[in-house]
């Protein structure tokens, strides 16, 4: 596999690696997909805001009993600290580590700023979480130049405007782009042409494929499938026998076929918020109600920001009783509304109703709310009867006012009393 240097590595060179593998003419690619992933995002934000932390092993989260590390600076990673690692283990590995609590609202703020930068490069940006996103660069070459230059410019803009570092993978498929951004970290850029796709994928371990979890991996190993190439060279019929319908799908991925496109925000299918509690809560506890209120409000606000409404609300609960192997029983319940909504109290009302229908008597360790069946609100078309108050006009005015307050003074500036009563641990955005 030849690794020619990229066209131009312009200015400001602390860049670790900016490489193009098979830097073919990206305008000829069927799709040009970039995956941008912030390096040690939360820890880097802490170091950015507090210069005293720079160059030190900073560990975000993991301070409390059940807490896990949500982010570790590269200085801490040298000691083997990784995100999702239990706090106690991180402390053992890195006794001098500086443990700081997370400041979710700050991360959200910077995440938005970064997303706006991404959106200046392409209208189709699919955020996966606060710190990573797919960006569809297909067809942008005429406007912005070749994809590798676009990626260089994008990394430069993020660094200039936020002071943070983002690694970028560019490939004709989503999966390859994501693997590339991971491989070139920290502070890297990798671009891979379609003609090198299989050469690149095949030596990688098969668990790099999306959809290969622990159980599938074990069975892969039983059938002597270790690398992605082993899978790619197998007979599809045989794989169907081993893995059912997933067999042919994984075989396709292993051969570089990944038809998934970047889904822009307005095409998004669902919005969700969930969090794992510091300690388990009973189903009828006030704490659980509070969490649902916070989730309902957070989701509703995101819906309004994107000018969409949702028709279906689901509740997700993970029970506290371990099943072994780090797994817990999962319950989900859904309910569809007659009219799509973007109102927090209404989402919370449905989630609370769904909660009341759960008959299990156990405690829960995780609660999440998700909404689906997203419909676009056409804000541009004026209405004939807008002068007359619609039944929910008062609520809409209230929501608009809340949004305006939060936009000006930050997400923490105003919340519902009950949601605030006990500061819930920062929730995690899902999808």
């Amino acid at each position, binding site marked *: 596999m030849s690794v020619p240097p990229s066209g131009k590595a312009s200015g400001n060179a602390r860049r670790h690696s900016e490489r193009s593998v098979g830097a073919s003419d990206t305008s000829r690619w069927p799709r040009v997909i970039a995956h941008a992933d912030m390096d040690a995002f939360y820890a880097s934000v802490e170091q950015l805001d507090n210069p005293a932390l720079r160059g030190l092993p900073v560990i975000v989260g993991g301070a409390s009993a059940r807490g896990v590390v949500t982010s570790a600076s590269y200085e801490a990673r040298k000691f083997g600290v990784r995100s999702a690692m239990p706090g106690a283990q991180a402390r053992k590995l890195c006794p001098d580590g500086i443990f700081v609590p997370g400041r979710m609202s700050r991360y959200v703020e910077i995440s938005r700023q970064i997303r706006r930068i991404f959106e200046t490069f392409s*209208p189709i940006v699919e955020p996966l979480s606060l710190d990573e996103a797919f960006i569809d660069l297909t067809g942008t070459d005429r406007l912005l130049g070749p994809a590798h230059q676009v990626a260089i410019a994008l990394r430069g803009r993020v660094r200039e405007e936020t002071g943070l570092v983002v690694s970028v993978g560019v490939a004709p498929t989503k999966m390859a782009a994501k693997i590339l951004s991971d491989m070139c970290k920290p502070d890297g850029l990798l671009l891979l042409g379609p003609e090198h796709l299989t050469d690149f994928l095949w030596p990688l371990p098969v668990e790099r494929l999306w959809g290969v979890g622990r159980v599938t991996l074990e069975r892969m190993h039983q059938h002597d499938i270790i690398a992605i190439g082993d899978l790619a060279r197998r007979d599809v019929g045989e794989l169907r026998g081993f893995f059912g319908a997933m067999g042919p799908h994984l075989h396709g991925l292993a051969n570089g076929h990944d038809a998934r496109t970047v889904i822009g925000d307005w095409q998004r299918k669902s919005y969700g918020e969930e969090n794992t509690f510091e300690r388990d809560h009973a189903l009828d506890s006030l704490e659980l109600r509070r969490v649902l209120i916070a989730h309902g409000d957070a989701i509703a606000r995101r819906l309004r920001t994107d000018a969409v409404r949702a028709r279906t609300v689901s509740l997700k609960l993970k029970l506290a009783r371990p099943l072994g192997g780090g797994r817990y029983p999962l319950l989900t319940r859904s309910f569809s509304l*007659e*009219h*799509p909504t973007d109102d927090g109290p209404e989402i919370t009302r449905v989630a609370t109703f769904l909660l009341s229908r759960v008959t299990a008597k156990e405690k829960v360790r995780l609660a999440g709310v998700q909404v689906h069946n997203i419909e*676009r609100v*056409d*804000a*541009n*078309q*004026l*209405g*004939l*009867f807008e*002068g*007359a108050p619609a039944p929910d006009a008062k609520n809409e005015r209230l929501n608009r006012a809340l949004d305006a307050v939060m936009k000006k003074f930050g997400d923490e500036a105003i919340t519902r009393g009950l949601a605030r009563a006990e500061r819930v641990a920062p929730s995690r955005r899902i999808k």
Partner: protein
Amino acid sequence: MGLVIERASLLSSLSLMQGIVERRTTVPILGHVLIEPDGSSLALSATDLEVGIRTQVTCNGKEKSLTLNARKLFEIVREAAGEEVSLTSLDNDWVEIKCGRAKFKMMGLDPRSFPAMPSQSAKEGAPAGKKALKAELKLPSSVLGEMIDKTIFAVSPDEARYNLNGVYVEAGSGTARMVATDSHRLALIEREVPGFKMDGGAIIPRKGIAELRKILDSGGDGEISLSLEGQLAYLKRGATEVSMRLVEGEFPDYRGVIPKSSKYKVAVDRDALLAAIKRAAIFSSERYHGVKFSLSPGTLTVSSTSPETGEASETLDIDFKGEEFSIGFNAGYVQQALGVLPQGSEVEFGLSDDVSAGVMLSPADSKYTYVVMPMRL
């Protein structure tokens, strides 16, 4: 035993039913037609519980009542070769259908489980408290057809706004008025109907009025009578009757949203404008269908831009002397209204500013008003 029916008349009757029977119903019998022989004719009925249609077809022979899947029976009769179709009941609600040399066997359902037509069920459940509606709209079928055509396209498809899911009918002084709106635009037509009186108004559901429209063209332009009684609208024409439950709910105050006056009045050739909008709409965004109307002395420019695909514009000469201004509209909303106005006619646009309703009038038809809200572009 068995019925023999003329294929052509059975086909036309069954085709009337296709709009009513539910395609993907969870209640199988709502996908069926009820066939009730009665001497030398048989009655065909179909209903989705909201709208019902019943028609008579002449036949020979004797048979008990049957039900058959309306879609399948229609397909069989449509594809049939001979002049006649015969239906013979077998055991357990199975039915044998023969036409030409083809033979089909189809499973029916127990005809006793066929639901009552809305006309029957609505009479049973008479409304309590509210003053019962009772009105009779008598007018030439061509006039009713025109009134429906010029309003039905503005009915809201959004089921959540159920009070906008139909055409509103009310009486003026010696006139009948029909109004439809989806809250973005509104169509209003008024026609002279001497002696027509009714208290308040009624909302006739979209699906029902569309089915009713289909039977207006057959059988010449005779006077017909649309009954509005209780919770029901009912119309009989020849051997066919359509009945439907009225939409319950309050129709919004439409009078308040029709502008009394407009700052600018612009007369435009209907055909030229319709063609220009169709061309400009090629580049309007798929999501919003917006087109821009730019007025300047002597010209109207219709244009659209799409950042992804391109742009289009076309200029029409008009008699306009005001200040330059522009306003955005959903292209479809304007097109649909122009579409129902007579070819070769002139339309008059009343516009005030880019956030106020535009009014479209037809000098050829002073009793038709179309109001459309602009879009922010």
